[in-house]
């Protein structure tokens, strides 16, 4: 956009150089004098009662300072106020292989490890519930005492409009069942934390976390310290993807160890421990039923999702809702019913992974629609394109769509990929597939109920014109620090390099809720806009007086403030700053952001609302080897409606990363466990299969700009949405290539061959789940749809 100086240009990230030269210090790079090292003893049992722990031998090892057990940290915590079910170290029970049981602080890791081996724990094994079916059937064995039923963490049932009526109006109704395997984030950086308790009675925790504010709250709660005596600093994070958004046992443990020893204490998880800490993608079994008219127009949809939650709550209540909430924001769905259940099992806890609860239903929905289009002889693109949501509008479940560039996204990828010439026309073994998706730009509600802003920004300015931006947001590699710098630089008319960004330090920076739900660019960005505009107003007022030009005629750019009508007439930025400081005293400004109030008023309406929704459309082209079953993705065309690309290079980076992660989930990533003992079968980067650069296809990106009214400069999210269409586009392409439906992610070579063999024997060739557990669903909460949907029954 020509109107901008900074926005829309491919500036380097503000932290690019230190990262490239290796100077960036991650949590594990911190070293302090007298530092101790901590290690955590973990449960070898999937489910067991702790009868006795004897730490005396461990304590006696020379070099060991403290040994902790659950009794030292009995207060429960958890990210959501409704699921405070974790203990920093298990007190009475362990619930999965890898659950933390005891911890040691010692002079080095060798000593700490040796001490761990000397801790004697007597367990009374309990039956391990390793599948959802087992957990639902075995109601006499309880993993937790709370929830919506035996081993049921959460049960949801919502109905928007009369779905029965909608199905009655349909010409065609189709049901499908899909399974989406669990996977993990696999950040390159393993979680690390360092704690120090100073003689001033203050505790500092440096951690690789996406959510310093929530860690701050959890530490205060579990340690029983007043929050003002705790400081949490999020270090640059070497990849998060949702895996570092909970408060973690190891963070609390090092903090406690620092309190007890008065020495800095560090912990770095091993790669294996990262697999146990997990919080990754929930395995989801999903049943979907859709009624359509002959032309493909949707009349009703009913979705049931079963989430295998693992051993703890984490974000699971939100995840459960997310498997149902966003189906409505792509295509017009006039009546919608959602039932969801999250089941506790004795496996590492699942949580938010990039796309949080939405890739699973998106996979189901987009493959399901592809099948419907084929059943009815419709063009799959046209069928979708005809019923895209309007903007502005409210969906049937009361989500407000403020902008939607999906149509443009579809057109770009369909044209660029030559989809129409290729679809159902390529030779056997080669195929193209299509899918769309949408994602939220930040959760509309905070994790704990409060009326305060979700993000705050403070700006300080020095007399030479240097600007420092303070914000609680945590840069996890996505570039949120850079976004703050670009936005402030744009508004003040300076360059990104003039801006210093100080973030994610609970002592220094105003609260930002954290780097999750794709919220930072929109929320911290809006807060930065507000703060920078306030500051600019002061500068303009001072400059206007000096230049004798009306304030509203001034412009700030290229480190100057000048008269638009007569650009020669102006001041250097630094000069304006000095004038303003002389005039108003010390300069500074704050800004904050709170999302618009969500229009929905029903129980469960808190999950799904967002200031805006991003949209993506994708075409995947694949080659399937019918003898080996290997699927090779040759190319991905993807268009993403990002509202506005504050920095197109960063947006493309997010898209490439999303394609990569979606590719891994589609083809190979899968969390697997020993069927009886619940031991993770592949907790290493060698055995857990994630694609290498060689599997990565060529990616052609298109950025669609819709200038959303709620975004800073119109921006929406880019970090998660582009992942969502990848698995279904690949699945649809595999079908196009070999005529076999793999309704189960990942699409492994074994499954492809199984499908082909079935087809050769005269079967349908479909591979995937065929039933869902029987479960008595509660009466749905019936929600009256927004007025515009109420008449849709008369559409006939």
């Amino acid at each position, binding site marked *: 956009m020509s109107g901008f100086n900074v926005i829309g240009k491919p500036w380097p990230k503000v932290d690019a150089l230190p990262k490239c030269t290796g100077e960036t210090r991650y949590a594990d790079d911190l070293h302090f004098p007298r530092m101790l090292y901590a290690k955590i003893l973990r449960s070898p049992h999937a489910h067991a009662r702790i009868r006795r722990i004897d730490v005396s031998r461990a304590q006696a090892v020379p070099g060991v300072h403290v040994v902790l057990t659950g009794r030292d940290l009995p207060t429960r915590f958890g990210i959501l106020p409704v699921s405070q079910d974790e203990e920093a170290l298990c007190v009475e029970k362990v619930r999965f292989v890898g659950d933390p049981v005891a911890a040691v602080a010692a002079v080095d890791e060798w000593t700490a490890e040796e001490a761990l081996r000397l801790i004697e724990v007597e367990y009374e094994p309990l039956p391990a519930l390793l599948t959802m079916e087992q957990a639902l059937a075995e109601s006499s064995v309880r993993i937790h005492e709370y929830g919506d039923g035996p081993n049921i963490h959460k049960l949801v049932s919502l109905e928007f409009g009369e779905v029965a009526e909608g199905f009655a109006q349909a010409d065609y109704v189709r049901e499908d069942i899909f399974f989406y395997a669990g996977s993990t984030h696999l950040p390159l950086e393993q979680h690390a934390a360092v704690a120090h308790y100073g003689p001033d009675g203050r505790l500092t925790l440096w951690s690789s976390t996406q959510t310093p504010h929530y860690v701050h709250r959890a530490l205060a709660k579990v340690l029983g310290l007043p929050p003002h005596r705790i400081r949490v600093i999020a270090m640059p994070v070497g990849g998060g993807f949702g895996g570092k958004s909970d408060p973690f046992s190891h963070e609390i443990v090092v903090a406690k160890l620092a309190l007890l020893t008065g020495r800095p204490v560090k912990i770095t998880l091993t790669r*294996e421990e990262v697999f146990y800490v997990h919080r990754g993608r929930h395995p989801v079994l999903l049943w979907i039923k859709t009624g359509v008219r002959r032309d493909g127009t949707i009349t009703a949809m009913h979705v049931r999702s079963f989430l295998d939650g693992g051993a703890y709550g984490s974000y699971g209540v939100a995840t459960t809702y997310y498997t149902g909430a966003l189906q409505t924001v792509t295509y017009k769905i006039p009546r919608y019913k959602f039932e969801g259940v999250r089941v506790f099992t004795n496996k590492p806890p699942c949580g938010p992974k990039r796309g949080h609860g939405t890739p699973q239903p998106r996979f189901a929905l987009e493959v399901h629609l592809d099948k419907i289009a084929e059943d009815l002889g419709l063009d799959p693109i046209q069928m979708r394109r005809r019923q895209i949501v309007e903007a502005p509008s409210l969906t049937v479940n009361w989500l407000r769509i403020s902008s939607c560039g999906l149509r443009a996204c579809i057109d770009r990828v369909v044209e660029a990929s030559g989809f129409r010439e290729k679809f159902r026309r390529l030779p056997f073994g080669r195929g193209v597939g299509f899918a769309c998706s949408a994602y939220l730009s930040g959760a509309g509600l905070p994790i704990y109920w409060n009326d305060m802003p979700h993000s705050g920004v403070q700006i300080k300015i020095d007399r030479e014109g240097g600007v420092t931006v303070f914000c609680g947001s945590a840069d996890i590699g996505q570039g949120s620090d850079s976004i703050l710098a670009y936005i402030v630089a744009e508004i003040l008319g300076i360059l990104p390099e003039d801006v210093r960004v100080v973030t994610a330090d609970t002592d220094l920076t105003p609260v930002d809720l954290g780097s999750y739900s794709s919220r930072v660019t929109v929320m911290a960005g809006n807060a930065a806009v507000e703060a920078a505009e306030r500051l600019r107003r002061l500068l303009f007022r001072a400059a206007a007086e000096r230049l004798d030009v009306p304030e509203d005629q001034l412009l700030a750019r290229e480190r100057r403030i000048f008269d638009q009508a007569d650009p020669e007439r102006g001041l250097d930025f630094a000069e304006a700053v000095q004038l303003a400081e002389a005039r108003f005293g010390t300069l500074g400004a704050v800004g904050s952001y709170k999302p618009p109030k969500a229009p929905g008023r029903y129980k469960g309406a808190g999950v799904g609302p967002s200031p805006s929704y991003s949209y993506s459309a994708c075409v995947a082209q694949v080659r399937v080897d019918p003898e080996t079953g290997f699927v090779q993705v040759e190319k991905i065309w993807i268009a993403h409606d990002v509202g506005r690309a504050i920095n197109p290079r960063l947006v493309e980076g997010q898209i490439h990363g999303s394609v990569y992660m979606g590719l891994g989930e589609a083809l190979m990533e899968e969390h697997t466990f020993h069927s009886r003992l619940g031991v993770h079968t592949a907790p290493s980067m060698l055995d857990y299969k994630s694609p290498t650069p*060689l599997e990565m296809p060529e990616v052609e990106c298109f950025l669609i700009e819709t200038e959303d009214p709620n975004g800073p400069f119109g921006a929406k999210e880019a970090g998660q949405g582009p992942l969502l269409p990848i698995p279904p586009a690949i699945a649809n392409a595999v079908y196009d290539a070999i005529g076999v439906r793999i309704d189960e992610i990942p699409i492994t070579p074994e499954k492809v061959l199984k499908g082909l063999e079935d087809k050769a024997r005269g079967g349908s060739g479909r591979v995937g789940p065929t039933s869902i557990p029987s479960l008595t669903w509660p009466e749905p909460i019936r929600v009256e749809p927004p007025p515009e949907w109420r008449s849709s029954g008369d559409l006939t």
Partner: protein
Amino acid sequence: MLRLPPFRYYAPRSLEEALRILSDHGSQARIVAGGTDLYPKMKRRQIEPAVLVSVRRIPELAHLAGTGREGVTLGASLTLARVLAQDELVLAYPALARAFAMVAHPPVRSMGTVGGNLCVDTRCTYYDQTFFWREALGFCLKKDGTTCPVAPGGTRCWAVSSSDGAPVMIALGARLRLVGPRGERTIAAEEFYRDDGIRYLDKEPEEILVEVLLPPQEDWKSTYWKLRRRGSVDFPVLGVAVALRMESGWCREARIVLGAVGSCPKRIREAETLLEGNRLEPDVIAAVAHVVARSVRPLKNTDFLHLYRKKMASVFTQRALRELAGASLMDEASAC
């Protein structure tokens, strides 16, 4: 992070010195070359030697001489990357070049050696895990335990021979020169391996593999096909090494060796006999592939379903033979 256990490290400069240190420390000692196999296993406490004897400074092991026409001597401590940089060698022994080029990923090939590759430990899902993991699942026969979860009730270990180099060396008819406290011996590569997941090498612990002698290649054609989930990093879960001596379209001599489907590389003599005296016609190829798949019995202790690996033994054998018959298999290269 996982820490290496403490150990003493020796870097002798001669074979004699190395042998002396090895015999001084007996079963406490272990040979190390690039360490790419050994160190990760030490971190996971699968192997816990108190003494390591590096062979990388011993001049005899860094030997590299000869040509495809007269045969080649490869010192055991040459890195895979070094071997792959020898254009002449790559051309003369295409199967070997393919196998080495598909070992792990570039950093491992820069450190990992020929000798280490041929002596690489057997692998198993239940064994290549940390101490904590093995304790949680229950230790197995190969280390610290008394049972085998892969074949419960049995008394042997079925860990998988996972070297890409081994089946190729056998197919090429390579010979290995070993030096030990009781002197020197040169054996056929085939004799070096034992069908036992624990004692998988026919070698005394103190014996040092000094060099590999590759025979002249003359009329031999060779290739190697490898099954793994990803195009890099992964160990083989099936390797098909084929070497054929061809005379104007007729196969005079054949060696077909399957890797990573058992505890040692396996020569499929029945399949070789089927080929010998025949042209590489489609029906011959199909029959050979059938025999190969029938002869291997992969178990459930690697990546991929074991029955899938068995099926792929046939597919990969066909592809290897078709390639040697001159077909262009660019389209199928993806699964390799």
